[in-house]
Each structure stands twice: as C-alpha cells, then as structure tokens.
C-alpha cells in the first residue's frame, strides 16, 4: 500500500498543475458531461448530494448527504471561519459542500425551537469519546452559522480563540483599564471580518451610550455601530476597545429583541487556559488580563437573552494541554467548566458507515480519488480501516490518492 501511495504521490505531483487547471477552467457542466462519458454517476450523486440547500429545511432524511453552499455566501458569512484544509478543498472543487450530520441536525432542532425570552442557551461541541481531532466540530459550527445567517441572525463568529492567546506581536497596555492588555492587530482583523459578515446590521443598530476614545475623540450616543467598527479599523490603537464596545452593545440590545444574536466561538477552551504571552519583564500574562478575552468571557455568560451561544472545544492549537486530551472537563479545566455550566454538550464523532460511503462518493464524483482501486469495495474498506472513519484523517488520506 505504501509503495503504491508513494508512486501515486509522484504521479499526482506531475499531474497536479494540469489536473487542477482542467477543473478550474472548465465549467461544472462540462465536468458533469465528462463524468457522464465514463461510468454513469447518477446514483452516487443522489446518495452523496442533496439539492436541499437551505439549512432550515435539513432533516433526518438528509443525514449523510452533502449540500451546496453558494460561493457568494461563503465570502460574506465566512471571511475567516473555515478550517484551512477545507478552504483549499473549496478552491479545488470550485464549490463548497458540507455534509449534513447528526450533531448539526440536533443543534438546528434546538435552535429552531429557541425561546428568545429565556437566557441564551450554551451548546458545546466536543469530540465524542471514540475520536479525538478531525471529527468535524468546526465544520458543524459552520453549518450552524450558515443556518443562522440564512435566518437573518447577527453572527458573532470568533474563528479560533486560541489565536488570541498566543503569538501576539504588539501588546499595549489598555487605556480603558490599566491592568489589562490590548491586542490591536487581532482586534482590527476581527473587526474587518465582522464588518464583512454583518454589513446590513451595522447601520441599523444604534449604540446607547457615549464612549470616549481619548481627549479629542468620542462617539456620541445614538450613532450607529458601523461607526464604532470603522473607528476600530482605522485607529488600530483603539481596536480592542472597539471590540469591547461592540460586544457590550450587542449583548444589551439583543435582549431588546431587535435582532437575534448567535455567538459562535471556536476553541472556547482558550478562554480559560494559559497564554504564551509575556510582559516586558518576562512574567506570564493570565488569560483574564487580556481585554479581548475578558470581554469574550462576559459574552459567553448566559445573562442575556435573544439568541444562542454555540462553542467548540479544540485541542489542536490549545496551549499546555496534552495531545490526548479531548474530553470537555480536561480541556476546559475547572474554571472553564464552572463558568460554562449549565451547558448542553453535543458530541461529534467519526463517520458512521453511511456518512463514510457518502464522503467517498463525493470525492469520486469530483474526480478527487484517482487511484484505480478507490471505487472498489476493497479500496473503500482499506480507507475505512486506515482512517477509522475520522473525517480529517480520511481527507488527508484521499489527498494522496
């Protein structure tokens, strides 16, 4: 198997530019025609893809099938949220397809029945006990975000909270609170992406308090949230405070019922973990001394209503946690668990046989699997054994074939 793979890798490398060029230049219809010339792929398409593109209408019967997300939506909803390998796959196939899976369906059901008068319910996606990383938590979160975007909720998406607690270049002492630290770069990047996602809301929401940036500049009560965001993007020094204001205002106003708020945090265990950041005198900074983290913690507390909070736990990217840790309590720690309690844990596991079959069919249709044995039963069994049904692992394996 290994020899075959290495030979194929060299073959695929030679084939790579031409292969992708072909896919990129040809329109999907000609691709379908090309496929039709070979074996008839009608039935696999029916198994692996569904035409129901609205997440609100996804049900049990769509479980295991891929649905298509329009690329235009992807740019607005997910300027920064997708896992890097999935983004590469999207670019390669020129389409974005997400598999409908049980955890996402469960969450959708809860979200559809949310009572907006009650405090926001917290949902935590974590790896099920037979899988560790690569089980599909981030992509399930993306599915939920797509649903909420279609339902016209305001999306507050933090793509990876771990990025905010490590490797930050400039740390400024916060002007608002002397004990805390600002992270201008991260805050301004996030504000840009937030603006892209929620463009239409920014002018509708008006802030209800006056905020003073410094002696000369201030924001008056009644001006739109868009202005706060602009100020944060242009004046990088005030970006962190701008983020704080945005979070505070959104929390306050979603309780009024003007809009529904979805707080989606990926890697929420970073909020209660250690950081790798140090002060000038090399003493470590605790997580709560970062203004961004402090404000985010307030956000995931359930003392507001009018929306929902969906979070994922992630070990990859987490700091100072052993590689084998994937259970909620291990990753969150005592502090994190106490802060998030009560929450609904939702376990995301490896593919079951139907989902696995569907995934392989999807890859076959897009001519991603070039190995001659890939569509045989034996080949599928081999892939199942090698990847153990783990979505991330399967994707990496198929990249070689």
């Amino acid at each position, binding site marked *: 198997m290994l020899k075959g793979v290495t030979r194929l890798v060299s073959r695929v490398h030679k084939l790579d530019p031409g292969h992708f060029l072909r896919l990129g230049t040809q329109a999907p219809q000609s691709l379908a025609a090309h496929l039709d010339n070979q074996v008839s792929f009608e039935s696999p398409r029916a198994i692996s893809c569904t035409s129901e593109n609205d997440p609100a209408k996804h049900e049990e019967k769509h479980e295991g099938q891929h649905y298509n997300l329009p690329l235009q939506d992807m740019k607005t909803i997910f300027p920064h949220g997708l896992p890097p390998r999935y983004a590469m796959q999207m670019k390669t196939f020129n389409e974005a397809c997400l598999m409908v899976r049980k955890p996402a369906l469960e969450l959708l*059901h*809860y979200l559809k*029945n949310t*009572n907006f*008068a*009650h*405090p926001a*319910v917290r949902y935590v996606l974590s790896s*099920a*006990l037979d899988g560790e990383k690569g089980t599909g938590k981030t992509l399930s979160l993306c599915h939920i975000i797509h649903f909420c975007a279609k339902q016209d909720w305001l999306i507050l998406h933090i793509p990876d909270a771990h990025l905010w607690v490590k490797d930050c270049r400039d740390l400024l002492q916060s002007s608002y609170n002397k004990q805390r630290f600002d992270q201008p770069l991260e805050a301004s990047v996030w504000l840009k992406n937030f603006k892209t996602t929620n463009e239409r809301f920014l002018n509708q929401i008006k802030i209800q308090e006056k905020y003073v940036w410094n002696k000369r500049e201030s924001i008056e009560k009644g001006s739109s949230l868009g202005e706060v965001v602009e100020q944060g993007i242009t004046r990088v020094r005030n970006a962190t405070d701008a983020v704080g204001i945005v979070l505070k205002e959104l929390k306050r106003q979603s309780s009024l019922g003007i809009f529904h708020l979805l707080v989606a945090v990926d890697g929420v265990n970073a909020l209660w973990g250690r950081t790798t950041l140090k002060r000038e005198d090399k003493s470590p900074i605790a997580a709560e001394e970062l203004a961004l983290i402090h404000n985010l913690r307030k956000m995931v507390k*359930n*003392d507001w*209503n009018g929306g929902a909070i969906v979070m994922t736990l992630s070990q990859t990217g987490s700091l100072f946690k052993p590689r084998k840790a994937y*259970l*909620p*309590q*291990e990753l969150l720690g005592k502090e994190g*668990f*106490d*802060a998030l*309690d*009560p*929450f*609904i*844990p*939702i*376990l995301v596991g490896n593919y079951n046989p139907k989902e696995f079959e569907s995934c392989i069919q999807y890859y076959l249709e897009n001519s991603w699997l070039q190995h001659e044995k890939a569509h045989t039963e034996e080949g599928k069994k081999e892939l199942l054994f090698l990847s153990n049904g783990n979505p991330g692992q399967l994707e990496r394996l198929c990249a070689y074939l």
Partner: protein
Amino acid sequence: MAAASLPAWRRLQPGARTLRAFSTAASPTTLPGNPRPSTTERTSRFDRPPRRKALPPRTEKMAVDQDWPSVYPVAAPFKPSAVPLPVRMGYPVKMGVPMAKEGNLELLKIPNFLHLTPVAIKKHCEALKDFCTEWPAALDSDEKCEKHFPIEIDTADYVSAGPSIRNPKARVVTLRVKLSSLNLDDHAKKKLIKLVGERYCKTTDVLTIKTDRCPLKRQNYDYAMYLLTVLYHESWKTEDWEKNKTEADMEEYIWTNSSSEKNILETLLQIKAAEKNLEVTKEELLGTKEIEDYKKCVVSLKNEGDSENTLSQYKDSVKRLLNLT
C-alpha cells in the same frame, strides 16, 4: 585401534618403554585423556588407575513417584544431572532453540526453589507443628478475625549462620488497619487521610504504618501503636484554622454553595422572570426534582470525570431543566 594398542604397550619391557617415551610417536596423542607424562615425573602409566567413563546422570534412575525433598533437601545450586526436567534457558541463535540444561550457566546463576516444593513445605510444617499452639476455634472466618483483631502487625525474623545472630532488618514493624474498623466520623476520616497522605490506600481502605526508626523491634511496635493513637485523637479534634478550608482543598466535589449551583439558580430565576413567574423562591427551586437530578449529574461528572455515561446524563438533565425538547 588405539584401544588394541594399549594392552600391547603394557606388555612391553620397561626398557623398551622408556625408549618409546623419547620417540615422537603419534600414538600418545591419539589416546584420549591420557596425557603424556612429563619427563620429570617418573610414575608409570599403568600404576595410575584408569580413568572412569562418565556415568549416566542420576535423572535416568529416578522414579516418577520418588521423594523429591531428599534430592534437594537444602538450597543448592541447580544440578542438571539431578533435575529430571528438560529445561531450556538462554537466548536462541537465529533459527535455533534456547540452550539445553547441561552446562547451562544461566540456570546456575538464577536462584532456584527446588528445595521448597509444596511437598517439602508440608513436611516442614509437620515438623514445626510440635512447636505451635492451636488456632483458636472461634476464629473460623476472615470476617471474625477482622472484627476481633482489626490491627495486623507484620514483623520479620532473620536466621543465618554467621559471626553474629543480629540482623538490622529485623527491627522493621508494619502496622495495617482498616479505617472502617475505627470509629471515625466524616470530618475525622478526611482529616486522618490528609494527615497520613501516602500511607492510606483508597481501594482497600487500609492504613499502613511502617516504622523502623528505633533500634529494637519492641520499641518500633510501641511507636507504631503510639502513632495510631495520636492520629485517631488528632483527627477527632477540629482546629481553628480548619474553617479556612478552600474549595481547592476539598477531596471531592460538593454541590451546595458551589458556582454550579449559583449559575443554575440564576438561569432558572431569569427564565421564571421571563415567564412572569416571580413568586418562585430559591428554596422551591432547589427542591424540584430536576435540580436534584442535575445536582447528581454534576457531582458524578466532577468526581468521576468524563465518560459517555456521565456526559449523556448531564446533557439530559440540562435539557430537562431548560425545557428544551
């Protein structure tokens, strides 16, 4: 051929024989085990007794139902000719098997207990019975022994042949007691466990105190009993500083007055407020079945760690509390 030449040699005259001795005939070297006598030593070859052939090993003469303790009455090195077992030991060469027992140094190096077979031990016990007293008839089960004699003392005596009969290892005394047989309440038990630390085993509920700081066994035994008494009395006392016990010191998770309780009460109060149901008080909320359930789930989650079971129970209880379908 060589054997035939030997008696021919014998018949030779002494003179002719000495002539032979100087010659460099090949025959002396072909005869096995008959070294050429040095020229200084003038003992005649046929004065020396002939070398005996190796006898068959004793194992071939052993009956299956023989008395083994008489073969190995004391600790003795492994004798391959006396042990009738086809034992092999050693690292095999490629495509080979471990070495056989004849001339095997590995078998000699390791300690063997061939002198302590069950039959031999039975014989020892029979011999020792004359020096023992009767086992009390009333103590015929383990539970009765536990009940009447909860404390167990282990001591070791050493006998060896040597210039001195003393052995410093003989002063070690180990005291074992089950905490369930001591009269301790909840606080006392927790305090005792904290005081002894490593010496308590949670799975078997046994406290083990090993003392060897005094020179005599008797003194060590007294010291161990003293330690047990002191621990017992100290754990019943409550000091002033014990009320500063923080959550980090707690051995297990206690739900009352924890942050989990606060969170859930706040959440429920908010839900009730949203439903305009302001008459509900904290005590009422605490008494409901859902909260009881939730409390049990959180306690088991914290104390036992995450597992599929505990997580799914927790999930169900939270769903019921928050009225999600």
